[in-house]
């Protein structure tokens, strides 16, 4: 695994200029995501309207992988139905943990496949998955999620 494959232009760009940055004043759903081991910490707010993600925003601090993943997640789920968003959560998680072969199996990930390389960096999988995990929690109205313990994506899947 060459880091150039992971630190591609699109990831570096989203890290530097995160999209949908901030908090929604009229959020209907919120969640906080925390990766205590490396200090990634994000706050996600979304506005659902008729089972559709009408608006979404995030802010927080974290590594480039976490920030870019958060940013690209927001651009990808905005306008999608809750069911479509949850489908993306599953597919992203499976890609990052190596359960989904993006070249061989049908998926809806599109540009999000730039994160496929994290599967070769087990210590960084959590960074990429944290925002998706947090989205799942927000959709189900859990307030805080962590990537440690029961919710450790690596421990659960590997």
């Amino acid at each position, binding site marked *: 695994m060459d*880091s150039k494959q992971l*630190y591609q232009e699109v990831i570096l760009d989203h*890290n530097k200029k995160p999209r949908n940055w901030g908090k929604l004043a009229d959020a209907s759903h919120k969640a906080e995501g925390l990766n205590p081991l*490396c200090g990634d*910490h994000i706050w996600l707010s979304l506005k659902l309207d008729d089972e559709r993600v009408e608006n979404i925003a995030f802010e927080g601090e974290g590594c*480039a992988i976490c920030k870019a993943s958060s940013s690209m997640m927001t651009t990808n789920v905005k306008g999608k139905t809750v069911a479509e968003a949850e489908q993306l959560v599953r597919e992203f998680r499976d890609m990052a943990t190596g359960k989904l072969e993006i070249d061989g199996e049908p998926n809806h990930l599109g540009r999000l496949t730039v994160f496929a390389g994290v599967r070769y*960096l087990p*210590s960084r999988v959590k960074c990429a998955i944290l925002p998706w995990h947090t989205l799942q929690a927000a959709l189900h109205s859990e307030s805080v999620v962590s990537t440690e313990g029961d919710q450790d994506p690596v421990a659960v899947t590997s």
Partner: protein
Amino acid sequence: MTSASNLLQAVKPASALDVGRIRADFPILDVKVNGKPLVYLDNAASSQMPKQVIDRLVRYQTSEHSNIHRAVHSLSEKATAEYEGARRSIQRFINAKEEREIIFTRGTTDSVNLVMHGYGRAFLGAGDEIIVSQLEHHSNIVPWQMLCEEKGARLRVIPCNDAGELLLDDYAKLFNANTRFVAITHVSNALGSINPAKDMIAIAHRHGVPVLVDGAQAVPHMKVDVQDLDCDFYAFSGHKMCGPTGIGILYGKAQFLEKMKPFEGGGDMILSVTFEKTTYNTIPFKFEAGTPPIAAAIGLGATVDYLESVGLDRIAAHEHDLLTYATEAFAQLKGVRIVGTARNKAAVMSFTVQGVHPHDVGTILNEDGVAVRTGHHCAQPVMQRFGIPATARASFYLYNTFAEVDALVAGIRRVQKIFG
């Protein structure tokens, strides 16, 4: 290569060690990572093992293994003699007065917990105060917090300045009639600060308060003399000093160990057992319940022999040269902040790269075969003090070279280029 680093090449200090010869002792240094030679700069987390120690483990397991302190047969007597021989080697290494003051544990964390349970739970009570420092590893904070919670005792913290040096005037002022224990690190794992342990112990003793020193980052890198320090307890780990994992040492003055309660109950820590009453064994055996990691203990004895054959003073001098060289090289890097600039400092470079999270730094350095630690280094209060979530940390040892410092610096430049 830039002219600045060429300049640095030119002023490299003469090494205090024949590093080429030392590197030949460490088989793992031939490993390639991502097709590049391994540049192992994570020694503060765990160090590598020389073939002298590996061979000793193999010899023990091949021809000497049995349980110790048990049987009359030859192998058991051999294993016992080697295990107790290792204890004497370690006694000599840290200049303990008596060999019964050396307790084999699983490591520094286990040693601290032993003192918390054996001394703290027996002799501390509600309203008592325990002093720790801002620079502690979690392993020298959490056990004391657990004790405070159980007993209603209180934790007091010695602050540090922006360089990462403990403030001794503030430390002296923390003592009062309720102070019962001091637990301080000798060398900060996160910053490299070498604390004036001897002075701090003397201050505590003037108040009649015993002191535990966490020496996990000191013993591997400098000559430690527990009688000169006059510490009451001293804890360290095998795997940070070129020895095996799963073995460590608690040194304790006999007068303390004798009045302490056992930490764990079981075989070997007893003299006699009936259902009515058990009589505990004498020290150190009172604290070594069950079958210990015999091979690792004997391996630690061989480790001490190895370090002594190289010479702790020469190791310290070489590491100091590496630190000086790295500090000058880092000064040439724009946007790189060294966290921890104590005047008296071990060969640890904790740093941040402006605009880049330490985990991204670590992942990219790994591409060049450069192994550094990234994160909070199990010292979150240190990170909070400096207002950062994490750092990248390069920590050096006897087998590291100036060329490896160059590889680190080149890697950081590549990080900066990628993140532009």
